[in-house]
């Protein structure tokens, strides 16, 4: 059982006599409903064995009244870590604050941060595809800066896409925040399931139900046409609100109404396009679909994170792509097998190696903010 922030000793002493096991404190609002919580959950499991880990939970206005994310709850239970809620001060060698967008409705960060290195993982894209801000980034970062004392402070992107947005934002605003040279990518330790040898035109997609997760109705109708053998949508809550617009051949399920694995069993092609005004910062769900043995078709920018593990499309040729695989079933299996190999590059071992090395570099190149 790990204790609270009072257990830690003075930060300066720790810097002078650095321990062998790095002390890392994760700081997160654990009520994020989607990818952020899932990523942190895997991260806890991966880093628990490799570092002296504590988990600090903060309550922000963004998720007022919501419960802790069940995936994150399970990760804490599995590791035996007891989260510290709303600690007045979070002290550690490294403090990793996940997804600063959670502070967008707050006037202050409830916990103060005393550490050697402060990592702020930008799970949420700071810029939208059209270049406008995705949230009040300066406000959120200011709240963090106002409440933190540290030697170095870094923004850590989760993907190449995410990194480009942060870079552009930093350039545009002249902010004194600095972006680290490595990515804090999502750990994707999903169970690998062999692809089917007899694929059919069974299409589907899953996501949170937010409007940003879906393209326009017209595009959705094209991507999930009546001619397909099956069109399944998990998380299509907003379509269920407006049943008159719902094509009869769509099988729409509310978000969280069935296990992801069970949903994915019913499809062979994961057709995933978001609203053009929004983009996934990482696309965890894509990795999950690949691991479940599905061909993923998505837009080129989202596809970039996964390289050749997915089929990049502008959305106009989805039927043709699927028809191509169906005409050559062995190519379907080959594609997925290769994709699953690539996704293994997002495993926990790789993550630990990358992150530990990166944190060490940061220690050596601290800004001496203290």
């Amino acid at each position, binding site marked *: 059982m790990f204790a609270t922030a009072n257990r830690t000793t003075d930060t300066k002493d720790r810097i002078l006599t650095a321990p062998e096991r790095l002390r890392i404190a994760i700081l997160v609002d654990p009520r994020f409903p989607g990818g952020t919580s899932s990523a942190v959950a895997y991260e806890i499991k991966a880093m628990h064995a490799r570092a002296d880990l504590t988990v600090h939970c903060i309550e922000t206005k963004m998720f007022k009244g919501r419960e802790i994310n069940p995936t994150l709850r399970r990760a804490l239970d599995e590791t035996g870590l007891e989260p510290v809620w709303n600690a007045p001060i979070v002290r550690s060698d490294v403090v990793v604050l996940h997804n600063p967008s959670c502070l*967008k409705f707050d006037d202050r960060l409830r916990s103060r941060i005393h550490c050697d290195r402060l990592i702020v993982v930008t799970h949420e894209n700071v810029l939208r595809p059209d270049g406008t801000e995705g*949230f*009040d980034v300066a*406000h959120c970062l200011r709240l963090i800066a106002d409440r933190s004392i540290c030697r170095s402070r870094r923004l850590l992107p989760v993907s190449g896409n995410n990194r480009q947005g942060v870079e552009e934002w930093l350039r545009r605003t002249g902010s004194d925040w600095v972006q680290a040279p490595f990515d804090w990518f999502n750990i994707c330790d999903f169970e690998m399931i062999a692809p089917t040898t007899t694929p059919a035109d069974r299409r589907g997609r899953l996501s949170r139900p937010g*409007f940003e997760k879906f393209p326009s*109705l017209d595009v959705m109708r094209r991507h999930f046409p009546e001619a397909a053998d099956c069109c399944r949508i998990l998380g299509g809550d*907003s379509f269920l609100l*407006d049943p008159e617009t719902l094509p009869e051949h769509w099988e729409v399920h509310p978000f969280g109404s069935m296990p992801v694995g069970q949903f994915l069993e019913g499809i062979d092609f994961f057709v995933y396009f978001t609203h053009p*005004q929004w983009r996934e910062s990482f696309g965890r769900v894509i990795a999950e679909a690949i691991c479940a043995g599905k061909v993923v078709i998505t837009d080129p920018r989202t596809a970039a994170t996964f390289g050749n593990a997915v089929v990049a499309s502008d959305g106009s040729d989805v039927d043709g792509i699927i028809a191509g695989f169906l005409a050559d079933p062995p190519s379907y299996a080959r594609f997925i097998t290769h994709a699953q190999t690539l996704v293994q590059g997002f495993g926990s071992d790789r993550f630990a190696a990358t992150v530990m090395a990166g944190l060490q570099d940061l220690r050596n190149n601290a800004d001496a903010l203290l």
Partner: protein
Amino acid sequence: MLYCENARGPEGSFDDLAVFVSQLEAAGIEVGIGPHSVPSELSRNAIFDAVARVRLDQPGSGDALLLVKGHELTDRSLTRLRRLGAPANLRTLVLGRFPSFQSVIGAKMKLSYALGENPEVLDVPAGLGVGSHHLPVFGVKSGRGRRQDSRPVLLLISPDLKSDTQREALFALAASPLVRLIVLTEGETKQDLQKVFGQAVTLFHYGEILPVTLAPMADVALVFSAPSSSYRSQALLANLVVSGVAVADCSREKGHVKYANTLLQGPADLLATGTYLFGGILSAAGMIGREIAGSKFAASLDGGETLLAVRRLQAPAEALAAPVATGGTPRRSGRSKVLASEFQGGAEPVTSAPARETHPLVFVPTNGVGLGHAQRTSLIASEIDPKVLTPAFAAFPSCMKMLKSYGFDVMPLVSRSGLHRAEHENDLVNYLRLRGLTRGSKTLVFDGGYVFDSIYRSILENNLNGIWVRRGLWQKGQDNSIALDREKAFSRVIVPSEAFEELNEGYSQGSHIRTVGPIVQRQKMTTKRREKLRGELASRYGREFRHLAVTMLGGGVAADRSAQTAAICAMMASRRDTLHLLVVWPTATVEAGAYAWPNTRVVKTHHASALVAAADLYISAVGYNSFHEVIYNRVPTIFMAQMAQFMDDQQARAMAAVNRGCADIVAPDEMLSLRHKISAFLDGGRSAEIRAALSELTLPEPGNAEAAHLILELTQ
């Protein structure tokens, strides 16, 4: 075209939206209420507010979306907006409470996912006094409203009338010869006050009249209510201020002066209002109003950046170059095309409406099967020299042919039908038509008993001289309170008098009430002309006759007279010396059997007067027009009154003539008596007696020309 939607859709306040859109319209912005913001249930007043503004179609290319209360977006409302099926380039402006950059970003993002484009998002400045902070409050200066007389109009806004003392004070003010009083209050209070004051006090309730219509009616406004978050109240105050009305804060806490110290302070007690007003405020009202209109507070009600953004949204390129005209003369909204597209989902673009003819003077008679109101108005209109002014008519289909035969242009109105779900549905269409027809008119002349919403609203909203031609002799026990309540919309009430003095009764008072002589169509029926006409009838019907009898019992919705008609035809069947003409309006339905009776001929005509004047016996209902034609043209008549609840008191009218020996009367169920009377008239010399008695009468001068003069006086 702007589509204004409430972010909460139909769950949002429709009243706020309707008032806001009416304010924008008055400021010269072409805007309609989008299809997603209309609740399934609306009050009657709100339905009329809505019908002229709701756009049922989807926005098209070049249209724009104005979303209000954008901070109240929900998933459901986003779903509705996603359904808009808007073109990809639908420009959108969102107004609401967005105090932080994050709230602006949030609204932009959510809406871009629903609409496809990033909207412009504006934080609405706080409202007046209480910071309602949802919709932009701005004032619109309208042209001065029509008045019933030269007295300044005093508007009391929500006076406290709970105590008898305050009510008495209100009554005293209403009786003042120095001001004309209007009270704006809640709906229930209005009903209570109507029971107490009848028509002595002019009352409006808030939902009855839009701020943009009410404000121009006032010269002095005393505000007794505390600052309210109601957008309707705030818009009214803003309109009053920019329109140059002398506004005084008479609330107990003087809360209005705290945010607008340019306003006067007045007493909260109505007992002191008279002293306050007549001690100088009233005489200086014009100067005070100008001071208020020129104040910084008034300038702050110009809509500021918000209204500029709305104008940019309407026409981005032009708006940048055009000066802001808030507070200036309102421009017509150009919605006349709605007339043609009212049930086509607003498919026609209203901006390209061609220039159309305006009619300075429009007559609106209300008639179903009978044509009394139409006939009366046509007689008045015929007195107007077409070289001076050509009146136009709006009339129900039953009257159109007759009015056209007089040479008038007629716009059709829609009659009530059992196929309408609600009884006022036809009037919604008529409202749109009348509103469009009278845009730019000066005077609307209405002849009828019940002032329909379409008429009432067209007069007020188009700032017309409303003239009500209102014949009297209402039945005892009739509830005419709604009709009389709407007298406030009229600048003048012309009362065509009855020929016999005991039948004349006043229903309201004031200098706007003008009584004229009976409106009647007189026939110059010389003996020679009479014989000529009878000869023509004999020739036309191929039979000679000694007696000419005419029956015209009316009917339609008022009463079924088919049994009486059949009985009369049967009586006439044995009279080979008589030609019996059964005369009906061309739109009336005649029982097929009527055509088979010997000696009877069915005549469908709009011009019955000549036939009646040539008759030896006339069996008639006792409507105003028929009665006065009988009296003035000296026609021997047996009356058979119609007694429907909503009609005038025909029995009393008939008895006034019967008591003078100038006519006989039978009840509808006294057919045996009728047989004796017919025989007495045609065989016993009764017709000659009646004609002689009629010749002895001294009758008032007909009022046709005077009525026309009173109408022209306001129109020219």
